[in-house]
């Protein structure tokens, strides 16, 4: 029987659907016109303008910093939470599970408002740290969820074997548990990173003077700015950086496996 052509057609249309808008954005970053609907010729004006925009670059740096710290902290806390829920049974188990899962379904606006009220009543100054704390509160749940899934089919006999062979608890954790769970933890961390870098609603409420992130600045630019297309240029550069990072990490992973 001849293999069906459907899978290929599906693959191609899905890829087109994914990457056509991105291709369009990159193309538009070179458009001399301010509007996407008209091609006024090739130009680097938005790139030139971008490098004069220190506020945008600062906002990008803020976003990256917050996302890095928030995902790192939630990787640690989320893994700990997943462990607690998977390994131990107690009366509070159900409540714990519920409390960790609720931020996944809570509307952003509610979380943003309540966090703001909390920070205000504690007299905390709003800045990058409050944004990071706010991001950890929702990122943690995602990490916990992903790591928990990984723990479901985790064979704890391996850890016991290590202990039998004389490893201390700490050694067993570092040499056995952590490396086996690492893909899950990293996947959760990556998810947390993307969620954090994207977040607008919660960030808006808990940000303070001088801590604009890229999403909050871009939303505001839509209203009055004459420079909006610099966003296309910035997105294109971020895209290039992302692809480069993925390519490098794939390379590293491959050479790593060969050596193992």
């Amino acid at each position: 029987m001849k293999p069906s052509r459907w899978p290929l057609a599906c693959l191609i249309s899905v890829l087109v659907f994914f990457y056509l808008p991105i291709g369009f954005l990159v193309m538009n970053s070179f458009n001399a016109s301010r509007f996407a609907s008209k091609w006024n010729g090739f130009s680097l004006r938005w790139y030139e303008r971008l490098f004069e925009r220190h506020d945008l670059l600062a906002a990008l740096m803020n976003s990256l910093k917050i996302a890095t710290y928030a995902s790192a902290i939630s990787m640690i806390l989320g893994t700990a939470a997943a462990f607690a829920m998977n390994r131990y049974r107690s009366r509070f188990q159900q409540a714990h599970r519920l409390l960790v899962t609720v931020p996944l379904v809570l509307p952003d606006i509610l979380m943003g408002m309540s966090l703001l009220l909390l920070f205000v009543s504690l007299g905390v100054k709003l800045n990058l740290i409050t944004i990071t704390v706010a991001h950890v509160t929702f990122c943690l749940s995602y990490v916990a969820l992903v790591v928990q899934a990984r723990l479901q089919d985790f064979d704890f006999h391996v850890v016991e074997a290590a202990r039998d062979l004389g490893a201390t608890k700490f050694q067993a954790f570092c040499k056995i548990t952590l490396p086996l769970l690492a893909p899950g933890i990293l996947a959760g961390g990556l998810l947390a990173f993307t969620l954090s870098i994207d977040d607008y609603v919660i960030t808006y409420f808990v940000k303070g003077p001088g801590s604009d992130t890229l999403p909050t600045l871009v939303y505001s630019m839509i209203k009055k700015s004459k420079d909006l297309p610099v966003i296309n240029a910035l997105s294109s550069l971020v895209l290039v950086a992302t692809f480069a990072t993925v390519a490098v990490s794939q390379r590293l992973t491959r050479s790593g496996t060969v050596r193992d």
Partner: protein
Amino acid sequence: MNRRQFITAASATLAASALPSCKSSANQKTLTVFTWADYLSDEAKAGFEKKHGCTLVIDTFDSNEAMLAKLESGAGGYDILVPSSYAVTALKRKNLLQPLDHAKLKNLGNVDTDYLAKAADPAMEFSVPYMMAPTCLSYLSSKVSDPVESWSMLDRTDLAGRVTLLDDMREVLGAGLKFLGHSLNSTDPAELAAARDVAIRWKKNIAKFENEQYKTGIASGEFFLVQGYAGDLIQAREENEDMRIFIPKEGSTFSCDDLCIPKDAKQVDLAHAFIDYLTGADVAAENMEWIGYRAPNSAAYPKLSEEFRGIPVLFPPIEIFNACEAIADLGDQLPLWTSEWDKVKSA
């Protein structure tokens, strides 16, 4: 280098690069401004920082409602706010603003008295007007034969399906009220009902209610007639010479953003100095050309370039200027408007 070393090295580098953000410049004063993005020229910002030896920190919001929600919850740390006039009224009602000390504002005499007569705070007790722009209509001259500069253009059936209106209660019902010769802040139920019927009639003629895409739409020739904000339409016109922009002769809405000082501001003197600086004639002229709106500042008008001064929708003839009104806070009459607007949207 293996994978783990790489990850360790990479995270260490990132963490190290992030650390310096914790240190602060303790000896220099900072003035924090809560405003719209790109709403102050680079030159004006640098000039103020140099003149007063301070740092200007700008924080942005993207709607008046979001700004109100945040301040009402008690978020502080701002010395200057730049909300629209109706939001200033709301802030004042909620007791979140402090009165301005006119002794520290030498340049207040520069403010355009024609505009002040229409402003929500004509005595400038709490706010000083910063930038304003009217809502306009714009059409493509090659597609629209015998245009008239009136809201009646929205009734033309030959343009059916090629027209957009703003998706905004105050703008559309306001246009209906103006078309009928009433105030656009009317709370008279009969006048509002008549405006609603006009808006429903227009709705049958339009492609959609649209707040963002109309600029692209008219610049690319997809729409022939759009209702939009002057600042946006002037930008769009740079892309398409065929566009004509006008303020309907019956009058339209003016939206104005004002400078005000919140009650819990730390740098009250510096905040006054900032308002005073921005109302200075030279700064106001440079700043308004950079932003593309009109600063209601009579002393600055002669300093503008001829080209900018010649934009008719920003500097309309006095009889059209007088026909325009600022959008006022509706207070407890708001439900009356929303119920009429719901009828328009569901018609």
